[in-house]
């Protein structure tokens, strides 16, 4: 049965379209289409250029975002370094204050001792 079905279907291969129809359609399609094809080519060209333009704009935008983020990170690093330097300066100033405070205390103790000696 299966082979019979295949055989019947294969026999359909001998069917051919009418020669007049083939020739008439061929003429109509190829003649009429020339101007449509030019229009299609023009449209295709416009679309192609639009796609290229869009790609360039997108790439530029992405590049801009990337560069901005890199510059932003660098800027942030500079700020951090500046902060470290400022912290160090602040530390030094604190040390100086501490030194002067301790020195004043020593001077005061020494003066008190001298005054006691004088009193005696």
């Amino acid at each position, binding site marked *: *049965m*299966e082979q*019979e*079905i*295949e055989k*019947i*279907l*294969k*026999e*359909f*291969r*001998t*069917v*051919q*379209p*009418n020669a007049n*129809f*083939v020739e008439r*359609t*061929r003429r*109509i*399609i*190829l003649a*009429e*289409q*020339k101007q*449509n*094809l*030019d229009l*299609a*080519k023009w449209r*295709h060209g416009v679309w192609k250029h639009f796609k290229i333009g869009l790609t360039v704009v997108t790439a530029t935008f992405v590049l801009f975002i990337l560069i901005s983020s890199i510059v932003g990170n660098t800027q942030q690093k500079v700020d951090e370094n500046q902060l470290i330097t400022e912290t160090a300066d602040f530390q030094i100033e604190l040390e100086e204050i501490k030194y002067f405070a301790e020195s004043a205390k020593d001077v005061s103790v020494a003066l008190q001792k001298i005054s006691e000696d004088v009193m005696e």
Partner: protein
Amino acid sequence: MLESEESLIKKAKSGDSDSFGELYDYYIPQIYRYVLLKVSNKTTAEDLVHEIFISAWKSIGRYEHKGFPFSSWLYQIARNQVIDHYRVKKTHSDIETVNEEFVKIDPDVSERMDAKLQWEKVKGAMQNLSQDQQDVLIMRFVEDMSHREIAEAIKKTEGAVRIIQHRAINELKNLLV
């Protein structure tokens, strides 16, 4: 497959109507048979084939060769055209037109008394199959296309095509018993 097909396509893509004409001459018989089997009416088949080749010529600039014969791409257009035809017109098949043509063409078949009857039965049974099943049977057995080419034409995997073919044959057998 047509010799120097790639070169013809390339020229046709650049607007060379003679090259497209050669492609047309080579492929029109098989596209016509496919459409005729799907719509079962000679006039409708001719109208649809006309539309299919107009559409192919219009959009050949967008065709990209992916290692399949040009026919796979044409079948895709033909499939869509037939689907649109049924969607819009909701036509019913008229197997008489096909039968006449079928029996007329092959003298060996027409000599057999039961040839027409057999064909009527097969064609009638095929109308009960899904569109995919009909496509696979026509492409495989009428046009002798490979499973890979059919898969490309109907946008399914090769495995799916084999399954569809197997089921289509089984359903036809059941319908014809």
